[in-house]
């Protein structure tokens, strides 16, 4: 009996030491969206960061802003650094779930100006562009290149797929209608501009076979022949091309989006989080990321560190950046709800 007790007490002691030990060692709780994206983050940043600093990284998924808000409300914040797109970041800022990132915390002077944000460190740039089936539009023949081509169903017949959410689609619709990329948000700020965009959606609607909901769908639909043309993300098209699916994409018109890493308010390991943000934004680390997924660095200093073959696959080359329109997350935070309602309404009929 006493032996048993002794055993138990030893066990308890061991357990206590282990738990204290792990509490003392620095940790970082990181949450992203799973899949190939999070794999790339793990290989290029999380693993080397952990090795360099000795900080243990715990990964989680689905950092929905709604859940972060619920965690803060119930004082059960479990995450330190989360990854969000521009729209979710802006939403989170409005709800006060992210901490402001000052230059003292993370120096972002070298970051591409269009990508900077007060509440997030830009992690990568990805483009929405036209991808198409090489079976339908083979090399050497007429191929769709611009958003106007995407909307031109006489010149390029066949079914299309576009995103079920309005951001990037509305921008593309206006550019297809002849609006200069630099003027898109000026036009959208007026009711007439919104009507014009909605008319474009109405026009293309009968030719859209699939309104896609996740980034893998455009390539799946092109591969299965369900559609011949897609508005989708460059990284996904690239993954399809790399798996020998007969598709191609055109960089002539792009809407760029920036991915952000944000610090959750009340993060349990705030210091580790800030350390990680500083690590991830170094040009060297930025250059590393595109080895694993075809998304571009957020600092031009990283370009020099990437070989030419790889740079061809990325949205961040100087000339591509020059022609690109960056998604205005502030605009979408202000008008997203109303535009989504209109967008859904136009397509529901």
């Amino acid at each position: 009996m006493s032996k048993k007790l002794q055993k138990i007490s030893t066990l308890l002691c061991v357990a206590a030491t282990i738990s204290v030990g792990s509490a003392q060692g620095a940790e970082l709780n990181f949450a992203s969206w799973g899949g190939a994206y999070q794999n790339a983050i793990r290989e290029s940043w999380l693993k080397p960061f952990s090795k360099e600093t000795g900080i243990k990284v715990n990964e989680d998924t689905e950092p929905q802003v709604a859940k972060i808000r619920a965690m803060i409300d119930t004082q059960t914040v479990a995450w330190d650094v989360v990854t969000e797109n521009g729209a979710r970041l802006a939403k989170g800022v409005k709800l006060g779930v992210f901490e402001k990132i000052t230059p003292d915390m993370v120096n972002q002077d070298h970051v591409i100006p269009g990508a900077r944000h007060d509440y997030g460190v830009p992690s990568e740039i990805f483009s929405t562009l036209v991808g198409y089936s090489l079976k339908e539009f083979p090399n050497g023949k007429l191929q769709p290149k611009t958003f106007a081509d995407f909307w031109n169903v006489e010149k390029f017949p066949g079914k299309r797929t576009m995103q079920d959410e309005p951001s990037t689609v509305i921008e593309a619709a206006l550019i297809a209608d002849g609006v200069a990329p630099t003027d898109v948000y000026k036009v959208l700020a007026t009711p007439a501009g919104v009507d014009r965009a909605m008319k474009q959606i109405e026009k293309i609607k009968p030719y859209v076979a699939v309104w896609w909901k996740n980034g893998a769908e455009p390539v799946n639909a092109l591969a299965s022949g369900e559609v011949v043309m897609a508005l989708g993300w460059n990284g996904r098209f690239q993954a399809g091309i790399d798996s020998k699916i007969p598709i191609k994409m055109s960089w002539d018109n792009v809407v760029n989006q920036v991915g952000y890493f944000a610090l959750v308010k009340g993060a349990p390991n705030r210091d580790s989080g800030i350390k990680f943000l500083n690590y991830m934004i170094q040009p060297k680390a930025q250059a590393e990321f595109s080895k694993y997924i075809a998304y571009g660095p957020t600092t031009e200093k990283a370009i020099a560190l990437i070989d030419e073959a790889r740079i061809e696959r990325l949205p961040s080359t100087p000339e591509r950046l020059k022609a690109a329109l960056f998604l205005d997350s502030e605009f979408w935070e202000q008008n997203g709800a109303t535009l989504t309602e209109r967008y859904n309404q136009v397509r529901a009929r």
Partner: protein
Amino acid sequence: MSTAVPLMPAPTAVMRARRHSRNKMAVLAALPLIVFLLLFFIGPIASFLREAFYADDQLSLANFQHLVNTPIYRIVLVNTLTIAAAVTVACVVISYPLAYLMATVGPRVAQILFFAVLLPFWSSALVRTTAWIALLGKNGPLNALLTTVGVVDEPIAFLYNFTGVMIGMTHVLMPFVVLPLYAAFRGMDGALTQAAQSLGARSLSIFRHVVLPLTSPGVVAGAIIVFMNAVGYYITPSLMGGPAQRMVAELISDNITKELNWGLAAALASVLLLAVILSLWLFNRLFGLDKLISGTSDKGSTAVSAQRTPGGRLSVVAGICAAVFLILPIIVVVPMSFGTSEFPIFPPPEYGLRWYTNFLEDSKWVNALWSSLKVGLIVTVFATVLGTTAALGVEKMSSRRKTWLDAFFIVPMSVPAILTGVALFYLTAPWGAVSNSVAVVIGHTVLAAPYVYITIRAALRSLDTNLELAALGLGASWPTMFRLVMLPALLPSLIGGAVFAFVTSFDDVVMALFLTTVRNRTLPKLMYEGIAHDFDPTVISASCILIAATALILLGRLAFGNKKVSTK
């Protein structure tokens, strides 16, 4: 049983006292589920729905005004009710021949059919839809077959429209009608159809005058489950339908997770709840819920005759078609799981074990499977106990109370899980219940208990109370009576209810997203991570492993349980 109990007419006072104590027992039996739902459903949901009446922290009707003034919400509400009603009708119509077939074939074939019915449950909603999309696509196998045979010239657009939604939702929800209907067919006296037949009744008239009245309790229970469930559905319609088939639950979910407009989400949910209650009321008025379910006495099951009427033969063909419809996606999923491509191409250009290796090598999949099984089993026990006792209690109550409690127990089914999930997070996160799976068990029990309740309620309604009274009158104690009389009669429904409870837990993604962490996440949550933002083919292999496991259990039962079945 040797001591004869004097069967004297009891004095009225004793009768009244007995009725009184029975009433008390009835309330006591229903109480656990009532309290459970009040604590973990009504309470949290009410505090969430309150947000509908606030805008900018002030009491206001702005959210409802917005719903009225923006046409999309009316369109979506009409869509939701239309789709839910159409799916309910489709499920009932397709289930009849299948359940009839299951009840009239030998036990071996019946078990194989059971397998077909339960199969859709074992592959997550996301995998099922992936399979349907591969199968029904413009250049998919089905269209290839139809155009080659020459049935159609142009490929049919099955997907991203109303047809797609109907196929996807009917496929998932049909088992909820088939199982109670099967129980009803088993309970039906085969001699009745034989008698009707020998008296010259034709198939259609046998169906109308014999089969329909005798099976209606099971059908009504199943139909209610399907309708209530369909109203709150969204993953399948969202992936297999187009913008014209958008349903309310999707907008509620978007407003909670994307827009973070919880006031609008709550307003939409209130409208949805109101519509559901109105539909129930209308259903009651039109079909007379009570009249339909009025207890038809169960004379025990005599095997239905081998002699089939022409209508019966037609039903068999239809039943086989229904079974094929249920298995169809699996025919696609199995070869797809052995592909090596990172894209769901059918048929796969190359075969290999790449994704199976991935499943077994990465401990997260096995951990998630284990966690899902654990949660599922605990939920099944809780839901079955809560649901069954509540059904037993309600059965003994006055009809006024019955109606109220029925509605109270049924309505939670149609509340989109995301709402309950968020509300429960607020309640349970401060206790640390999210990281130790208590929260997800509570959430799933809220989802699952109503299924058990409805199934058992329907079974009790068609149970002959005279048997019960006779046993009690002959001196059997209540537990003995329950064990010897009620339990055997209820067993098929009890198993059906437990299966519903288990699969409800096992298939849930939405609640798990909120109520688990990376350490105790369930398999569907992990599958969702692999498929929602990306496409990880490991998910398909995972589903196939589940299907294979089910098949093994079935084979085991066929091998070992054969004697038991045949002596029955």
